[in-house]
């Protein structure tokens, strides 16, 4: 085992707080490029106006340091924790929740979490964050923050298909999910797809697939081809930006897959809106 790298909880709080604000105020370059390209490619004049509005909105949000969208989301945090890292001065999860609490307060971001899904009283500080942790070799910590909006999250679906349903069955389920969602998830959307694993792991993969920047293809040629085929089928639906009709319904489809049981073909679709807010920081090394 190598030397342990020390990272303070205090530093994690500060970094998370900045990620929350930065992701919410600034549309990332990959999304901006996709919006610009879509404005060019779009056939409908009404939808073209929507793209123009979204680009103007990105400019105002950046200049005024205002949230791109008022739904500043559930704080979803992905942590890749190096096995040779030691967190000092506090616990990792406390630091993450505290960072979210601080970022949402300082940034005047909306607090959208209720403590109990049935009693529905707001926690007042947007905690708890939803945290996914993965252990990796080495002495760094990679933290990715995602502000996940409720409107698009609500349009997500999962199915336990049979092996006989195969590739075509998976594509049909993805396209059907977007068709049912129609205008509701704030199209143009990004479609995150998780295939295989178990019921829960497919959903996790669907969310995780959204972390790959737009414009970057899948490293596996078959999966890359599957993504492109799904994107074409989704865009053929004609839903368009804001559902007003148009040729661009999705900015991209991302697929991640995992080995699964001989009896199973789980498929999960996590819908993401155009206000795709993801930001990463690496600590240590």
């Amino acid at each position: 085992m190598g030397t342990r790298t020390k990272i303070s909880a205090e530093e994690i709080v500060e970094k998370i707080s900045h990620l929350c604000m930065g992701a919410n105020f600034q549309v990332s370059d990959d999304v901006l490029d996709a919006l610009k390209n879509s404005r060019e490619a779009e056939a409908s004049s009404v939808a073209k106006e929507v793209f123009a509005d979204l680009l103007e909105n990105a400019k105002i949000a950046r200049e005024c340091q205002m949230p791109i969208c008022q739904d500043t989301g559930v704080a979803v945090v992905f942590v890749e924790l190096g096995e040779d890292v030691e967190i000092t001065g506090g616990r990792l999860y406390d630091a993450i929740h505290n960072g979210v609490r601080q970022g949402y307060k300082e940034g005047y971001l909306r607090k959208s979490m209720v403590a109990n899904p049935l009693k529905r009283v707001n926690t007042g500080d947007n905690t708890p964050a939803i945290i996914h942790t993965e252990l990796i070799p080495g002495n760094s910590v990679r933290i990715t923050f995602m502000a996940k909006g409720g409107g698009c999250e609500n349009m997500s679906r999962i199915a336990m298909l049979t092996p006989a349903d195969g590739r075509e069955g998976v594509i049909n389920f993805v396209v059907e999910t977007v068709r049912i969602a129609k205008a509701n998830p704030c199209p143009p959307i990004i479609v995150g797809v998780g295939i295989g694993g178990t019921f829960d792991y497919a959903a996790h993969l669907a969310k995780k697939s959204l972390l790959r920047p737009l414009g970057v293809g899948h490293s596996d040629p078959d999966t890359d081809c599957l993504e492109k085929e799904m994107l074409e089928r989704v865009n053929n639906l004609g839903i368009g930006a804001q559902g007003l009709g148009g040729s661009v319904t999705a900015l991209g489809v991302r697929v991640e897959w995992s080995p699964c049981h001989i009896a199973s073909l789980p498929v999960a679709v996590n819908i993401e809106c155009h206000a795709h807010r993801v930001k990463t920081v690496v600590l240590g090394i």
Partner: protein
Amino acid sequence: MSNIIHIKTPLMDDTTANLRIGNRVLISGIIYTARDAAHQRLVELAGQGKKLPFDVQNQIIYYVGPSPAQPGRPIGSCGPTTSYRMDVYTPQLLAMGLKATIGKGNRSDSVIEAMKQYKAVYFAATGGAAALLAKRVKRADVIAYQDLGTEAIMRLEVEDFPVVVANDIYGNDLFREGMVKYQNR
């Protein structure tokens, strides 16, 4: 493309009668915010025959839960939330004289039917263009349900607030028509 139509609140029947799906509209005047939790309370009050915190007659409700206002600004970012969650409450409010709602996404058949019956319209604002829309809000005051935080009912003074007519009083639906037009089977 259609010309831009300027309208002022309160909204009268002769105004809604002139609006057609696809029209781009700029709204000026007073509008009221309400989303999930506020709707639940409003409809509960109405069911008990009690007075609502504001008279919905000829008014517009905007489905929004703004982000907190930064110092020196009247409101934070304030784009529309998804409207279908309010579908169960909307026909009752339309029956009480509400003339328009603003949100994003599709409405149910029963809401579209009620809009026809009560001569009301549904406007779509651009979801996720929340900083741009905030610039059109000149003043914002909480008038009820402060305890609901972002879900409280606010009275907004807006100037040239940009929307598109998604459903008119004639039963037309821009979402349905738009999608059919660009479908590629």
